[in-house]
């Protein structure tokens, strides 16, 4: 088996496509190029191997779900739930991505060049050395970082369809009780969800952002310095126990 293989996904059902990907990985392929992908779901689902998967076309929902290790690059848009319940590895989307990307994401990185949909990064959580990171180059829909429990989300609003708009989606960080959201060029206070506060970034934050955004820029062929010139603000939870006083017995 050679290290690098191509699979033509044209007209192939997701079940067969994923079977072929799994078989290729099992036989030792380290680089897999998927050609003519058109909406096939679950690419990379549950894969644990150190493999690079290049997607040519638009992958379907749940790209990289339960994944723990691979690097997936998409040269186009992606659909809903990219990086759903992902444990580790990296997904780079050179276009837009849909709703609930990074749901329950526990580790790894999800880099989106342009806009993302609703409820992205919902219930993201870090654990020990796992610290999930999502970077969205454009804007994001409502409920970004809802119930966020850990990890980092960076929202740039630079490369989307609606650049220059000051607004993020509504209910930003609603129910957030851990982790940090960084927003380039300031956070519109009217958009905040319940239980969050806006804070200025510190030197530690800046170092962290520099590291993440340098990697992001390198992966997507962007200029990290230009991204970092603008002011960033951060969103932090007011409490790690937002519902502690809600109950009695």
């Amino acid at each position, binding site marked *: 088996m050679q290290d690098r293989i191509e699979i033509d996904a044209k007209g192939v059902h*997701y*079940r067969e496509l*994923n079977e072929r990907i*799994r078989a290729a990985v099992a036989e030792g392929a380290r680089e897999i190029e998927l050609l003519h992908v058109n909406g096939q*779901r*679950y690419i990379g*689902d*549950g*894969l*644990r191997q150190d493999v690079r998967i290049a997607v040519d076309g638009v992958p379907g*929902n*749940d790209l990289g*779900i*339960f*994944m*723990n290790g691979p690097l997936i690059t998409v040269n186009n848009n992606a659909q*809903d*739930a990219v990086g*759903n*319940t992902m*444990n580790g590895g990296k997904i780079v989307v050179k276009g837009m991505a849909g709703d*609930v990307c990074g*749901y*329950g994401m*526990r580790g790894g990185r999800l880099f989106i060049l342009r806009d993302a949909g609703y*409820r992205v990064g*919902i*219930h993201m*959580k*870090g*654990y*020990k050395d*796992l610290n999930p990171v999502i970077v969205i180059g454009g804007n994001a829909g409502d409920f970004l970082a*809802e*119930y966020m*429990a*850990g990890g980092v989300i960076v929202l740039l609003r630079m490369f989307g369809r609606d650049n220059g708009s000051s607004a993020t989606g509504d209910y930003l960080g609603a*129910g957030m*009780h*851990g982790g940090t959201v960084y927003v380039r060029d300031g956070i519109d206070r009217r958009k905040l969800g319940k239980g969050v506060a806006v804070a200025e970034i510190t030197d530690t934050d800046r170092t962290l952002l520099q590291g993440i955004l340098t990697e992001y820029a390198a992966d997507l062929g962007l200029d990290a310095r230009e991204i970092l010139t603008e002011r960033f603000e951060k969103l932090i939870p007011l409490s*790690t*126990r*937002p*519902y*502690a*006083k*809600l*109950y*009695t*017995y």
Partner: protein
Amino acid sequence: MLYKNPYNNYFDYVVQRDLDKCIRCKACVAQCSYGANFYDADRDVIYSTDANCVGCMRCSTFCPTDCIRIVRNPDTFRPNANWKDNNMKDLYKQAGTGGIIITGMGNDKPYTNYWEHMVIDACQVTNPSIDPLREPMELRTFLGRKPDRIEIDKKGDMTTKLAPQLVLETPIMFSAMSYGSINYNVCESVARAAKELGTYWNTGEGGLPKTLYQYGERTIVQCASGRFGVSPEYLGAGAAIEIKIGQGAKPGIGGHLPGEKVLEGISETRMIPVGTDAISPAPHHDIYSIEDLKQLIYALKEATHYEKPVSVKIAAVHNVAAIASGIARAGADIIAIDGFRGGTGAAPKAIRDNVGIPIEVAIAAVDERLRQEGIRNAVSLVAAGGFRSSSDVIKAIALGADAVYIATSALMSLGCTLCQQCHRGRCAWGITTNDPELAKRVNPEIGAERLVNLIQAWSNEIKEMLGLMGINCIESLKGNRDRLRGVGLSEVELTALGIQQAGM
């Protein structure tokens, strides 16, 4: 304003101690985890702070001289048919705290219990009953999608490829209880019992401790909205995967394991930092429709290479039949339905006691609907929610369930006395607590033995009842409602259950 809460005086129980019999051994003091008993050295007497007593009977059980009686507090409010004691106490409590009242275990309100209004048929003269002690009697149950037809080659071998199945030696499984809501010793007791019995236990949504992976082939791993501990390794560890949509004790709401309970082991298994709240959202945010459910079912099948059945657990609610039909069509192999008497480690009391429907009517409605639609074979049905005895189980199967889940009964065999304090994490019986000193009260070896005893006893009773019906295989009872009759039910209730009035 100086105000004393009436609740403080009108507590539920009084600890009565016969001081003539009391030998001051202080066992009751050591056993009570709620601080209800204390020793006064000056007077050499053991006293009780009755307000702290939860009525769990731990102290009276362990008193070597049998000198303790836990009695209902005779000092009650003025009797009022409208304002019952618990209405009044809850109201005072909320006026004092402003909190949502949390409780544990299942709905304890006196709704009609349909198990108690159904009777089982027996053979007399016209066809013989079977003696299960001396004749073959099969309880083995297969859970999973069954094909519409099977094809057999000339040699008589089946050529149809079957969907993955769970194989149960008795139609009783242990229902989902998470590590965290119960402690490790209880998890291990249940896992060992499942293995010995040839049935399954369910991790709940708290992940699977690494040391219990050895029971994987008898484990159903759950994937709930919080996705706690859900990793590729975890999904691969079990025999089946269950998507938890809802729970009978609290349909439609999420879960919330408070930070105090997230200790080291639980943190590691749930994969969240120590001391943080483990919040499960009310819905899975990647499931807003049957189509979305299908997406997660197949994501899980893809992740486990179509080798494991996928179950979907829902709470029994008004529209349960239509929902179950959607779940079957979405590709689930098993549907677990949890009735409103199902237990919980913590739920708002208002929800536990008022939301959902009894499992009896839910299972009847779902079985009927799937039959009408010609898809009953596409999915197995597991009934859950307050099964108390083998007769409840056998009636559920006659109504259309393939198997049942039990959890409250399982915990009772480990000592639970239904004191409903699970949410406090101080369980004196060492079950719903993670305090290492209290958790030691459950020994996994003895616990497993007691669970095995219980299920073996129920299984033998089920065999006896099958025998008296002249049936030698549990499969033949499934959905066989002709063997049930209703007593004391209205016509509309009989219709909902799909059974006839006794005598007809």
